[in-house]
């Protein structure tokens, strides 16, 4: 068996006396859309923070594509090909939406000062294609009319769409999405799902935290269920949805 793209081993994190991550271990295999669900306070976002370098773990290890990144900085994790989004994004003050989106694409030729002189044509070409990619995704996400607006002018849901678009433009190896459809209009939910599926078909591995069951159960396989900081179970959507423990701790209704 090949090395999983993400391996989390025995990860631990406490805030004061509160255990948020309790010896959590799981893997995300390359080429999957893996769902991460669980009750509020189960430690889902904390896991993303530990993986993406926004919080240092108290114990355990994180490997991405075989490389140990335990305690690495967010920049190091991003350089290793892992990009994450936030549940409640903040606007990039002083930027237009277009500028905020242009941060997304990675390895822009023009970022290397020398290339500006030695390969100006290449710089122009990538910049033009990045601009086109920004326009395309903005149109799909219904934010095209906002491209020239200050990023601080957006509503909560629009900010979310900008952040998702930016992360998707980065085309990372591993994309961690924290509640992509919370606060997003239901009519755009399907567009987002299609976009995630397209990225997936192009080889991007996704790990998605989401409470919208219709969305996640259609999109993801496997589903990992987290409860009280540890993995409660893992399996295909149908198995997870019919598991009495999951119904009891999370889905409700019975």
């Amino acid at each position: 068996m090949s090395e999983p793209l993400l391996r989390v081993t025995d990860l631990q994190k406490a805030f004061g006396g509160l255990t948020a991550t309790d010896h959590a271990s799981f893997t995300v295999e390359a080429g999957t859309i893996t769902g991460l669900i669980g009750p509020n306070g189960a430690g889902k976002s904390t896991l993303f923070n530990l993986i993406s370098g926004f919080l240092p773990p108290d114990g355990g290890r994180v490997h991405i594509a075989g490389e140990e990144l335990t305690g690495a900085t967010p920049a190091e994790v991003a350089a290793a090909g892992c990009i994450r989004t936030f549940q409640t994004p903040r606007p990039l003050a002083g930027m237009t939406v277009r500028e905020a989106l242009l941060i997304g694409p990675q390895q822009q030729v023009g970022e290397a000062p020398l290339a500006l002189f030695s390969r100006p044509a290449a710089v122009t070409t990538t910049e033009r294609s990045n601009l086109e990619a920004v326009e395309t995704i903005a149109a799909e996400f219904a934010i095209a009319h906002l491209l020239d607006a200050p990023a601080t002018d957006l509503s909560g849901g629009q900010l979310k769409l900008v952040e998702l678009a930016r992360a998707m433009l980065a085309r990372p190896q591993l994309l961690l999405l924290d509640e992509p459809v919370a606060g997003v209009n239901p009519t755009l939910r399907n567009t987002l799902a299609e976009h995630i599926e397209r990225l997936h078909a192009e080889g991007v591995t996704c790990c998605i935290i989401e409470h919208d069951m219709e969305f996640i159960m259609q999109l993801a396989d496997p589903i990992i269920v987290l409860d009280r900081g540890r993995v409660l179970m893992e399996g295909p959507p149908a198995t997870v949805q019919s598991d009495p423990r999951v119904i009891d701790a999370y889905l409700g209704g019975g």
Partner: protein
Amino acid sequence: MRTSGVDEMAPPLLELAGVDSGYGEAQILYAVSISVAEGELVCLIGPNGAGKSTVLKTVFGLLAPWAGTITYAGAPIGGEPPADVVRTGIGYVPQRRNVFGSLTIEENLQMGAVARDDDGSAVIAGLYEQFPLLADKRAARASTLSGGQRQILAFARALVPEPQLLLIDEPSAGLAPNTAEEVFAHVEAVNARGTAVLMVEQNAKRGLAISDRGVVLDQGAVEFTAPADAVLEDERIAELYLGG
């Protein structure tokens, strides 16, 4: 979709008439007229950026209306600061950054008592019974709560002044299915005890299901307003706003 006990002849508890509002130079609302009757539950739906949250912020005094009037219980409140609005009996549950992270859960709830004449301890005790999660963590800092737990804390805090009208911005966003159901049940229960509710909700079908009336906002203007079941059954509305 329910039988409403709303008296349609009585003057509305809250009335926005021809309200324009926005941020800085950006106009978001255009001549918005919405009313909420006493004891009524109204669900405000629409695309991202339609101005739904702006309606709530303008009612609560976080934004001053540029034009039009806002009347609450017969008195004008448009442009009054939030500290005064909350004393008139309006509670507000914001969408984001809605708790004080450095304060404990208990202190957050006590903040809600600022608009009360007493210290609110009896009401807070009752809220602990309704929300056992908050009781368990009463001494913990709110910053240790998850996103969903913060939502519940913000909701509970807004109930401390025992408002006559509750403005709620996306109560189910970020909540686990069972927790979202609990919150909707709490909204219904609060409403059943007589508190009017103006609620913004992206989970429009779920929100409308507990509402008397639905108001569709699009590009800052009221597009449609009707009994909640009529909104749910309107095919054009379903396609445009409810995700089919």
